């Protein structure tokens, strides 16, 4: 049917070209090559420390009249006591829900009247409050932000309200296969170390959290010498520093020293590998994860790691190519390196129909393994680097994106000008570097597998591949320890 159209195309071409007044061309069978590249310039941050130790970073950028400000505390979920999973996140979330002078509703009204947003949460290694607002209102937004960081009231009424909301949220997450799989994967890889629990807690831990636990997290970690303020967008450096001084300059450090945290997380081994099925008989789809320990953020192999991951992940990365594009087994397969301050992990994931669960698991492990043992041509590697670099550049198209990129560098003590070496550091990685990283850091034989779905549809196939499959019924799952299984207790 396409061929018949060609005469018509020619006829119209002549007409069209006359009308447009351009030079007649025949249809072209190969893509026109690129023209000369345009140059990229990354934004330039400026920084200084206030006398109280608060590190202030300003990234001026004038394209849009918007400003994002983020106050980071250099501790997060990893400081949760073992039986109080979720307390750091609850502390961060409560900041915006009442201060010594304003109620939760008054805070929401004040920031939203400006058209702005104010969010707070804890993640691994950090807690943060951030605001995004039209630039003429950044002063007002920062005043609100400083108040919630410095003077939260942690009223019992708000604690109870947030506790109920958190438990309701967990009901949803624990009914969702992809979320269950991630909760389980963290326990599998980090076991009972401080990185292994659910950031938002568990149905058992959340009811145990008391006001004192929350106040203690705040008084211990929320202090200027443990904080970074990043302001980016339509603001000058001078104005940014002035605002920082005005709202955070008289923030005092407590007399006691900041606790030093020692976190050790286990290294994944072939002997310790788990093949774990969470049986959720009425699930609508199966989630497959492959997970293992990898590198912390300060590891000198950082760039080897992210380039290696880019070979596996992304639309045309090997995982998605094999699982989605070639076989139609999933809407998408991807992997990521989660690099924390004291440890890190690698995770590959895909969702598929139940009967394909075992096949997707084996394809995933095969691709991880092939990276260490198979061929990697320069031509493939260069396209994956281009994809990684393009994504990095796009991540800084927005005010929020710029702030979060620099905040992440600052958080982990990486010099901010590393951003200017990013391209060169990525380009320097050779196929041999990828192979060595894959062999030493993400070896497939010590990679665990977590599958959540209707087990009877994939378990027989999975048992043909692995001899040590553990099966836990979703209703027997216990996220409070690395065993993951509820112990039957009789009274």
């Amino acid at each position, binding site marked *: 049917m396409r061929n018949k159209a060609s005469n018509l195309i020619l006829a119209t071409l002549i007409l069209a070209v006359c009308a447009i007044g351009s030079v007649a061309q025949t249809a072209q069978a190969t893509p026109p090559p690129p023209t000369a590249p345009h140059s990229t310039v990354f934004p330039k941050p400026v920084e200084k420390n206030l006398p109280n130790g608060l590190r202030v970073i300003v990234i001026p950028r004038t394209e849009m009249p918007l400003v994002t400000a983020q106050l980071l505390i250099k501790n997060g979920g990893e400081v949760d006591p073992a039986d109080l999973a979720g307390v750091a996140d609850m502390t961060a979330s409560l900041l915006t829900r009442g201060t010594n002078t304003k109620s939760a*509703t008054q805070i929401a009204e004040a920031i939203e009247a400006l058209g702005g947003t104010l969010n707070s949460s804890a993640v691994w290694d950090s807690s943060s409050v951030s605001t*995004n607002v039209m630039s003429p209102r950044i002063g*007002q937004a920062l005043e609100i932000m400083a108040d919630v960081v410095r003077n939260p009231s942690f009223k019992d009424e708000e604690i109870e309200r947030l506790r109920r909301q958190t438990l309701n949220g967990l009901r949803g997450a624990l009914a969702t296969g992809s979320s269950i799989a991630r909760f389980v994967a963290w326990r599998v890889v980090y076991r009972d170390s401080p990185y292994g629990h659910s950031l938002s807690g568990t149905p058992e831990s959340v009811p145990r959290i008391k006001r004192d636990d929350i106040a203690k997290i705040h008084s211990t970690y929320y202090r200027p010498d443990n904080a970074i303020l990043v302001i980016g967008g339509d603001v000058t450096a001078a104005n940014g520093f002035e605002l920082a001084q005005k709202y955070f300059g008289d923030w005092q450090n407590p007399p006691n020293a900041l606790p030093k945290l020692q976190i050790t997380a286990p290294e994944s081994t072939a002997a310790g590998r788990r093949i774990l099925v969470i049986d959720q008989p009425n699930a609508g789809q199966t989630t497959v994860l492959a997970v293992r320990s990898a590198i912390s953020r300060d590891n000198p192999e950082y760039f080897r790691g992210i380039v290696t991951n880019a070979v596996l992940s992304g639309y045309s990365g090997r995982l998605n190519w094999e699982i989605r594009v070639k076989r139609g087994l999933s809407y998408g397969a991807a992997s990521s390196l989660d690099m924390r301050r004291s440890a890190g992990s690698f995770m590959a994931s895909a969702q598929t129909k139940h009967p394909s669960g075992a096949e997707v698991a084996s394809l995933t492990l095969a691709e991880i393994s092939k990276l260490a043992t198979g061929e990697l041509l320069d031509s493939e590697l260069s396209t994956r680097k281009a994809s990684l670099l393009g994504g990095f550049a796009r991540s800084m198209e927005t005010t929020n994106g710029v702030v979060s990129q620099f905040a992440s560098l600052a958080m982990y003590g990486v010099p901010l000008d590393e951003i200017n070496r990013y391209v060169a550091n990525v380009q320097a990685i050779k196929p041999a570097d990828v192979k060595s990283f894959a062999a030493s850091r993400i070896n497939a034989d010590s990679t665990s597998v977590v599958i959540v779905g209707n087990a009877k549809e994939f378990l027989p196939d999975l048992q043909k591949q692995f001899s040590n499959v553990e099966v836990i019924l979703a209703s027997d799952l216990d996220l409070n320890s690395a065993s993951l299984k509820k112990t039957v207790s009789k009274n």
Partner: protein
Amino acid sequence: MKRFTIVFVVCAFLVAAAGAVDAQVKMPQLKYRERTLPNGLRVLSVLDKSSPTVTINVWYHVGSKDDPDHRSGFAHLFEHIMFKSTKNMKAEMMDRLTEDVGGNNNATTQDDATIYYETIPANYLETLLWAEAERLSSLTVDDENFKSERAVVEEEFRQGILAPPNGRFFYAMDVRSWNAHPYKRPGIGSIEDLEAATIADVIKFHNTYYRPDNATVIVVGDFDQKQLDTWVNKYFGPIPKPNLPLPRVNITEPARTGEKRFMEYGPIVPLKGVALTYLVPSSKSDDAAALRMAATVLSQGRSSRLYQSLVYQQQLALSANAGADLREDAGMFTFTAFAANGKKPEDVEAALKAEIKKLQDAPALAAELEKAKNQIVTGQLRQRETSLGKSNALGRAAVLLGDPNRINTDLDRLQAVTAADIQRVAQKYLTDNNRYVIYYLPESERPKTSGNNPSTNSSKGGEAK
């Protein structure tokens, strides 16, 4: 070229509580250039040298509402096929030309339009104009690619509808809310209809809708206008305008004549869902701005009415939202809420209705109105930070609102909305007779007696054809 500067003044009393009063925030105008080729292709371009990239955004005025009969989900499946082969491009070559050089690509199928886009290093503009012209003029499809991509879309269905506990609830909303208009068919379709699709359907669909006079090419970024014009002429100019009529959906959704109630059931329902839907006019209606403002006052942010009432004070719901889902042919004003564990959907419904009555009985406060306007403007600023965001906004104005300059004038319409307008549209549309109610409950609560017409595992809900 059109010029517009929108200046916006903030009422002094509004921000008094938060500190100093600021004067005005300028919404940067979006200067665009528009031209139409003799074959009907419309081209819009916006220069933006803030990064060395360019975004191409191609809008086809065909969407899920144009799915052929018994082929729900087809427009979306077709969108996936557009990333396969053309006469001069092998399957996945679009990814080679974008992802492999540091760009990215994607597409989205909406009810009224299908949008393909790529952001690429600026020096690849000509290459990608060629590629977009290729798939507009000479898409090819083979059995193997068709079947594997259809399997991908079926996994997308499972991932979006079957896997999330609330997927079936949101799926049911269009199915239950529309009576006659094809908006009643969810864009993702059903497994049966996807399985029934053939390569012949693909060819027919491409011939019918993928034509230059049904396409708008939008280019935003770092380019040279003269070069762009030359390349567009060269690659799109020769594509003929077919002599076939361009079919348009002309089904009018009938006015509702009384409340209807539906019960949907899911296998895993951690929190029960409640939805109220009201039939409202289209995105082109004069009431569109007031409806959007009403939704913002009701549910944007923690100071909004629904959050304050249902989530914060009464603690009946984990979340409560209002939305003005305004489409090209008609719209739906929706309320959705998830009951907190142990709370009754009936109480959630009553609380939503109480908020509707409040909106009808008294005008919104001046402070609420100003807040909503500030939230909307800030949201638009955020959208326009990226070339993709700019091109999406321009495409929506041009294709769905019928005038690209609506990108610059829509804010005026929102600024002009008064408290009385919000009250008036609430009284006019949020009426008892115009309400459909959908509950989403666990399968275990399905009445044992009414064995027929089970809610679906993989197909659409009960009343759909």
